[in-house]
């Protein structure tokens, strides 16, 4: 049974066999991966009926962070461009949702795609001048973006409510579904997460993904092979910003409040921590990264109220030391060792 599924999946992508030789590695899912994924999704759909509203709120935040982290991972993990400013796109997404709902009375469902499109455009435009900046210089330019956004938000206080922010109402479940606001937001962000992860996976395993990785690994060789580096780099910036913007809009709905100082430099750095901990250039990495940035600060606080960030720092160092390729890299390695070991002992 398993091998059947595996064969059909292999067959479906047979046309891409040649392409699969180059990175990113492993472009087709195996049967156990599909089964595992389905089990995970099924589990995630059952959780809301088991957990308290507060826990659901926490997991909703995990999904929201995971979307933002996938966005940043496209840029930094796959394309090698370091951004210290993704908190800014998250903020733009959040304010887009808040202003549309509060000032213009737009139904909240529209705000999430609009935030994504707006951030796509802003990210693409920001990506154009950023083309001239490499590595650390780009990091500094995005850092400047992160620094300026809270102040820009405060400046246009007619729209943004200044430093008071904007208070929203949490959306209730539509169509008379018998769900609480917490359950509905959980499913909404889970749904958006799944759609965006499918899209991201499709984007990254094909031509585009290969082009992004080629530019990261050797830009000169990539250009020599005919990859339009300028276009792909700006595109990566735009798509990355769009993901983060969608996450920001969802966070505004879940928290039901936006204020400029939420979207500070520290948020951007938290995102960077998330993708590195989760695993650079991996699709599952953002989930692990999101779990880390959501829960570890809380555990750190439970361990020591006097120095929570010192404890957090210790967690970070331990994670980096034990799992130098992030959680997803660690799991992949562990799985390979396990399968190799069992393959060796299995009688043929």
């Amino acid at each position, binding site marked *: 049974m398993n091998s059947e599924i595996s064969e059909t999946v292999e067959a479906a992508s047979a046309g891409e066999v040649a392409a699969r030789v180059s990175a990113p590695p492993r472009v087709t899912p195996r049967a156990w991966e599909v089964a595992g994924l389905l089990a995970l999704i099924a589990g995630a759909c059952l959780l809301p009926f088991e957990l*308290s*509203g*507060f826990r659901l*709120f*926490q997991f909703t*935040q995990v999904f929201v962070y995971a979307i933002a982290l996938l966005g940043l991972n496209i840029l930094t993990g796959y394309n090698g461009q370091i951004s210290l400013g993704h908190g800014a796109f998250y903020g733009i997404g959040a304010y887009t949702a808040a202003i549309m709902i509060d000032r213009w009375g737009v139904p909240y469902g529209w705000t999430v795609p609009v935030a994504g499109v707006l951030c796509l455009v802003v990210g693409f435009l920001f990506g154009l001048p950023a083309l001239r900046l490499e590595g650390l210089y780009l990091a500094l330019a995005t850092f400047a973006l992160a620094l300026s956004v809270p*102040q820009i938000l*405060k400046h246009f206080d007619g729209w943004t409510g*200044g*430093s*008071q*922010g904007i*208070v929203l*109402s949490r959306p209730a479940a539509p169509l008379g579904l018998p769900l609480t606001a917490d359950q509905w937001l959980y499913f909404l962000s889970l749904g958006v997460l799944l759609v965006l992860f499918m899209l991201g996976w499709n984007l990254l395993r094909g031509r585009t993904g290969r082009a992004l990785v080629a530019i990261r690994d050797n830009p000169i060789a990539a250009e020599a092979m005919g990859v339009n580096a300028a276009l792909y780099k700006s595109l990566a910036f735009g798509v990355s910003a769009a993901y983060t913007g969608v996450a920001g809009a969802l*966070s505004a709905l879940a*928290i*039901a*409040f936006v*204020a400029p*100082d*939420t979207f500070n430099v*520290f948020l951007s750095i938290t995102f960077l921590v998330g993708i590195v901990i989760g695993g650079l250039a991996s699709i599952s990495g953002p989930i692990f990264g999101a779990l880390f940035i959501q829960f570890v600060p809380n555990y750190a*606080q439970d361990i020591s*109220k*006097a120095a*929570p*960030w010192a404890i957090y720092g210790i967690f970070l160092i331990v994670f980096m030391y034990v799992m130098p390729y992030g959680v997803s890299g660690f799991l992949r390695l562990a799985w390979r060792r396990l399968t190799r070991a069992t393959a060796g002992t299995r009688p043929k």
Partner: protein
Amino acid sequence: MSPRSRALALVVTLCLALAHGFSYAADPGVTATEIKIGNTNPYSGPASVYGTIGKGIAAYFKKVNDEGGINGRKINFITLDDGYSPPKTVEMVRRLVEQEQVLFLFQTLGTPTNTAIWKYMNDQQVPHLFVATGATKWGDPKGHPWTMGWQPTYQTEGQIYAQYVLKNLPDARIGILYQNDDYGKDYVKGFKDGLGDAAKKMIVMEQTHEVTDPTIESQIVNLKNSGANVFFNVTIPKFAVQAIKKARDIGWKPVHLLNNVSNSVGTVLKPAGIDASKDIISTFYLKDPTDPQWKNDKGFKDWSAFMQKYYPDGNTADLFNVYAYTVPQTLVHVLKQCGNDLSRANIMRQAANIKDLALPMFLPGIKVNTSPTDFYPIEQLQLARFDGERWVLFGEIFDAGGKHGM
């Protein structure tokens, strides 16, 4: 307590609990032996200087518990770090309300952070008491009947300077410098409300600055050139120092009204220069622990003993630690007044029913007063003039009672 009287107390408590029915059993966070109170504070992050308030309050509740608690109930004070980040505040407050099942929130700190949970607390109908911020919006018994502030608001303070001007400086030509955000605008609104019709005539210039500006020197020059003889200075310490220095350097000697955000002798007046700071006017409602006039005051001595025994790490020159001692005293008063009906509704009723409560570290004459239509506990302040060494209180206590929301 002897074993027999303890048993008696237990029986009495049980009978009382039964006699009251289980009216309060419906609300979580209270048992016959415990009251669970939730709080968030910025122990980390950009505003961690305020973290001492959370620690000081926890220390005070420890003292209360050591002395037997409130009506036999010990206080279980759960304080969590939100790093001054509104999303974290929402998460931590939901944990406190839904998971820890606290009876109510007390002294959650910060304006943006409290704004983030404002609607939630009122939807949940959980008391959101004595929030630690000077914004004016917390006194809204109609729209937000579960939320109440504590300290004098920025608008109250602005009104008090206005009253002083009207009474003592009829020929005032006022120049204002304020930070261009809610904090600055709140002060200016209170000041203009207080001046009333005279505002248009008296205020000759308003200058603003952004919190990110490197310097405010050009604003001071503009204010001098406007011919102002009264300077209302609404700035945080960094800019207050610059303003005092620059005014002296260019020979501008107005009557200088300095907001109490920046009236610290150590961090503002001394760095700006004692000579330049002489005769500046500001306001107080708590006893400044560095002021020698309280050396033999009983309230001050008790506070010193408390700091030594329960919060030895705390800075005894820090006015925040006086604040952290006084605000839980207000809460203890409310809880005692609740008697045995510790329902959330009754806690709000009693919090809105405080009459002339004077506390040991208030300046003499300052009192807490609330009513079902007045959710501004402290609306009095006293003016003080800096004599080159310390603040000298003068005049009578100004009262802005009932003048909010004009």
